[in-house]
Every structure is written in C-alpha cells, then in structure tokens.
C-alpha cells in the first residue's frame, strides 16, 4: 500500500500535486518555492499528469490567473514564497471574498528587508487576515499530507474558501527526509473530482463573479465569509479523520506533545517543533514537566481550543518566527494572549521572537526558555514578556 521514500518538502508537495492532478497551475518562480512549479512542469512534460501549466509574468498574475481558472470551473493552484506572496496581496483577498476554493503551496521565507532568502513566517503571517485557511507543516511528511487534505477542506460546501499549505523554506523545503507516500489511486479517490455547482463556463446558466457591491451588501457578505472560515474548523477535523483512515496519520488543529501533566508548554508553528520536542524529551529525562504544542491550523485560529489546552499549565512560551512591528509582540503572541484572556485562562504567557530570516533555533535555546519560565513561576522572577531569542547584545 504505502510506499517509503526520501524526499525534500518541495519534492513531497510536487508529488502530491501530481497525484491530485489539478486542472490549472499558473506560477512564477521565487526562492525557495521555485522547485514546486519546476517539478510539476517536468511531470507534465513527461506525461505523468495533465494539469494546464501557465507560465505567467508575476505573482500578481499567477494568483489572478488561478482565481480566473477557478471561477471558470477548474481546480487551480499556485506556489510562491515571500515577496511573491506579498505581490499577490490584493488577489488573495479577492480569492477569499469570491469564495474560490483554490490552493496555494507557500514555502515560508522572510519578507524584505533586509533582503534575505531564508525561513521565517513573515510572508504567511502577513497574509493572515486575507481570509485564507492556513495550515502549517513541521516536515516534508506533513507538507505532503496537508496538501492532499487541501481541496477536500477548501471545496467543502460549507467552506468554499482558498487554502494555503505552508512549509518552512529550506529547513523543510530543501532538506531530504524519509517520507511515506500514498498510492496514486488512494489519493485520487480521497480528493475526488472537482464538480462546482456554479461556474463561469457553464452554458445556459450565466453567473457573474465578484460584482461591485454597494454598502448595503458588503458588510453582510463579509459576515458570510467569516462564518465560512469558522465552519472550516470542523471540516478540517472531519477531513483529518478521513485522512487518518487512508494513511494512519492523525491530524488536528494542533499537536500536543507530552503536555498532559506539563507545567510549562512551548507553543510554536512549523519545523522548529522538532527541535522543541527533542529538548522536551531531554528535559523530561531530568524530571522537568514540559511539553510542546505545535499549531497546525493558524486560520481559522483555534483560540478556544488552545486556551483549553493551556489552562492547566503554569506558563507558556509563545514562539513567533515573525516580528509584527506592533511594539507588543508577534502575531501568534497577540492572538494567543487574546484567546487566553477571552477564555479567562490567566497563566504566565511570554512571547519570544526566534529564528528570523533563517537564524538557527537550537535545543539549548529551548532549555533556556523553559528554565526562564520555571524561574518565573518558582522564584517569582520577573520575565520580559516580549523578547528575542539568541539576539547578540
């Protein structure tokens, strides 16, 4: 049944795209996501899939073309990173407000400046309020699995929203790791054919997509879009449950690692979770009650579920691989603390900024952070609530 292989994150996603065989892929290259359209066009050239590949002149165009194709009735996708996502900004919002269930494979890279090509989450986090579903992966396996679940989530009748499948640039996208692949037929049966109810190229049933909306309609449309995003939460869990049946791999809104009796929890997104889990295993051997929560679904944001998962610990380190320049912390820090407050969970919550623009994040960093949380709780030491990890001072 399943096949063991070794692949980079980009290879894994390209392989999943080949298996899903969507209808249209407009794309423009940008490091570190370039390999994805490159590999897909190789599959097409070799006759292994029949997706219509459109080489466009910019990411503004790739997202526009993906929206156009989706509105016409095709299952579409594109891939990008960093500045490419930034250039798509206007269209990202349109994809969501026009309720187009297209997919984007984002390979997270920092936004300029200073100009840099390495990993952090500033691109994805910059698009956090565009109305897209955002799912982040820890490794190549998760990037592959998440892409296979993408269309069943996005195309669900209660959702109809675009979906971003994110993986960490270079750390995940270019590192080769073991992976378990599903058979082509299993993936095709799981994802199914795209059969939209309404689409532009539908003779005799005319529609208009994205018409001008006067003030008396726009607010209601936005509320409906917000409801669809809320609906996505249950759909993501339903799809994960079905996916477990074909793969044996379990997914939720987030993963809880050794948190059951944990006094101190580190909450983070993406590849750094592997480092944090290693450090937690080391510290557990020394009798420290520590654990990790790895957030998988950032949009819709599972505020209530996270508050529930954190309510019994004494302190949480909220890790942001992104600076949001609000003077008060990173995006994850802001949203988690707001979620804790609204759910009346009053624990020590320290916001750390780490790994910007590819800066290493090590097990030693994790030891230090847990030690600091413990010092705050046990000795009452005052901890800076918003601070940088590994900053030269």
């Amino acid at each position, binding site marked *: 049944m399943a096949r063991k292989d070794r692949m980079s994150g980009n290879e894994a996603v390209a392989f999943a795209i080949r298996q899903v065989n969507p209808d249209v892929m407009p794309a423009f290259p940008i490091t570190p996501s370039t390999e994805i359209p490159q590999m897909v066009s190789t599959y097409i050239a070799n006759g292994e899939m029949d997706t219509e590949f459109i080489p466009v002149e910019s990411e503004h165009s790739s997202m526009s073309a993906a929206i156009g194709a989706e509105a016409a009735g095709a299952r579409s996708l594109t891939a990008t990173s960093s500045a490419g996502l930034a250039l798509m900004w206007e269209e990202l919002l349109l994809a969501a*407000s026009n309720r187009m269930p297209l997919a984007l494979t984002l390979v997270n890279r920092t936004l300029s400046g200073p100009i840099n090509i390495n990993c952090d989450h500033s691109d994805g986090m910059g698009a956090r309020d565009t109305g897209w579903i955002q799912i982040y992966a820890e490794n190549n396996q998760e990037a592959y699995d998440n892409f296979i679940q993408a269309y069943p989530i996005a195309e669900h009748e209660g959702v*109809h929203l675009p979906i971003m499948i994110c993986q960490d640039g270079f750390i995940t996208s270019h590192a080769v790791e073991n992976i378990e692949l599903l058979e082509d037929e299993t993936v095709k049966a799981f994802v199914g054919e795209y059969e939209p109810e309404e689409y532009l190229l539908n003779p005799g*049933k*005319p*529609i*208009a997509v*994205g018409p001008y909306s*006067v003030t*008396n309609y726009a607010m209601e*449309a936005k509320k409906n879009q917000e409801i669809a995003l809320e609906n996505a939460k249950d759909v993501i869990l339903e799809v994960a449950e079905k996916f477990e049946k074909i793969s044996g791999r379990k997914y939720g809104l987030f993963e809880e690692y050794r948190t059951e009796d944990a006094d101190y929890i580190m909450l983070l997104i993406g590849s750094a979770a592997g480092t944090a889990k290693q450090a937690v295993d080391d510290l557990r051997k020394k009798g420290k009650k520590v654990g990790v929560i790895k957030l998988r679904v950032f949009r819709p944001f599972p505020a209530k579920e996270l508050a529930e998962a954190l309510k019994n610990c004494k302190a949480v380190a909220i890790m942001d691989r992104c600076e949001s320049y609000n003077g008060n912390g990173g995006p994850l820090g802001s949203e988690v603390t707001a979620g804790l407050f609204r759910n009346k969970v009053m624990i020590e919550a320290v916001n750390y900024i780490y790994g910007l623009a590819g800066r290493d994040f090590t097990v030693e960093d994790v030891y230090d952070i847990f030690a600091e949380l413990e010092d705050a709780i046990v000795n009452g030491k005052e901890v800076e609530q918003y601070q940088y990890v590994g900053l030269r001072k």
Partner: protein
Amino acid sequence: MRTDVHKINEQTPHQELTEGLMMFAGGTSKYFCTGEWRTNTPIFHADLCKQCLLCAPVCPDVSIPVKDGKRADFDYDHCKGCGICAKVCPFGAIEMKEGR
C-alpha cells in the same frame, strides 16, 4: 446555491445573500440605474439630428438606443451624463444641461 437574485434587495438578511455575492443571472446590470449618478444631462434635439450615428458607439453606458438604423431618445435610467455624445455630434443635436 442558485437562488432567484431578483428577490434579493437591500433588506435581505445576510443568510439569504448568495455566496460571494455571486449573481445567478445574465444582463443584470440593466437593473442598476446608474442614471441616478448624473449631474449633467444630454438633451436630444431630434430636429437637428441627421442620424449619422456617431454618438451611439461612443456612449460608454450604451444609453443611446438604436433601432432600424435610427437612434431614439436617451436611456436616462443608465446615462451618467458624461457628455461624450455631445462632443462627438457634428450637428449640435445633443445639448448638455446642468442637473438631472
């Protein structure tokens, strides 16, 4: 998902609007009376008109109806009063007046 969009109006609750405000009908722009925006109005003087039809194709809002090779009076429900027709008319058959 397909609903009769003609039943939707500015009092319709959000639950009954179409997804993404999609329109399930063709040619619906004629229901949108853009003529309400007009601040200047073209007046058609049929006695001066030679039916050369230079005016009809330049109208951005298709508000000069042409039937059997002859233009009729303006469609004031959609004419925004831009005045292009008046500029293009060689015979002074279209006069712009202030107001609606």
